[in-house]
């Protein structure tokens, strides 16, 4: 009962935040709507017993990435862009295509609803992990050590690349 209430609350936060992110005119308002949406997603993580990812979502996404976005919005002058139109010339076509895709997804979800083996309540599932962070660390450092190291190299490349690109041209020569 409480689960149902919280799910719909977080789902509403996520979807409305996403909708406002896409439709609002001012980029700063969009960023704030995206923060609301990410908070909703974090709540959904918590409901799915992913406590560590909940913390990661709050600290990394809302604290890190969104801060980066807000700094860039301040660096890049958006004042003229604010007065121009916000959607490109093909937005109607895009909407039609997405409506088609949405109808397709809805059709298959409705069609397969009875056959969904995962259509039963989540609370009924036994053997759910406990002590989330420890289990996650075990799996990450034992089974996924190589992808973990590759990810660290990727982050290093990203850091060097974005410093190089954001650097002033005169300083490069």
């Amino acid at each position, binding site marked *: 009962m409480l689960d149902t209430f919280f799910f719909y609350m977080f789902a509403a936060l996520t979807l409305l935040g996403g909708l406002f992110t896409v439709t609002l005119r001012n980029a700063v308002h969009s960023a704030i709507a995206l923060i609301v949406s*990410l908070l909703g997603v974090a709540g959904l*993580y918590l409901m799915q017993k992913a406590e560590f990812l909940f913390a990661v979502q709050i600290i990394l996404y809302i604290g890190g990435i969104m801060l980066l*976005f807000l700094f860039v919005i301040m660096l890049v002058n958006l004042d003229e862009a604010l007065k121009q139109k916000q959607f490109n010339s*093909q937005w109607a076509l895009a909407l039609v295509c997405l409506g088609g895709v949405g109808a397709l997804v809805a059709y298959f979800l409705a069609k397969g609803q009875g056959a969904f083996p995962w259509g039963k309540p989540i609370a009924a599932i036994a053997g759910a992990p406990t002590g989330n962070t420890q289990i996650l660390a075990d799996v990450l450092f034992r089974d996924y050590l190589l992808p973990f190291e590759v990810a660290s190299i990727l982050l290093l490349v990203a850091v060097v690349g974005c410093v190089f690109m954001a650097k002033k041209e005169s300083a490069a020569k």
Partner: protein
Amino acid sequence: MTPITTSHYVVLSAALFLIGSMGILGRRNIVIILMSIELLLNAVNINLIAFSNYFGNVQGQVFAMFVICIAVAEAAVGLGILIAMFRNKGAVLADEVDLLKW
């Protein structure tokens, strides 16, 4: 009220993915296009976490962590490109960048 099942999460994730796709396809502002990409990655993460919980193992959560890691790298590089582009062309709208079009 019906209890919440994994298919609820799948539907939610599909809806969020569609909203994010609309942002990518329709908006002109590059900052907001990058934010829409974050929305897409979050939709995928909801799916991964839901199935991770359903199957009772943490592989999905580990995968979601890698997705977040990629999202961080993507945001950093994307915003770096955006700053470089703004400095060179003064453009933050996607359809003003048409040097390769003819």
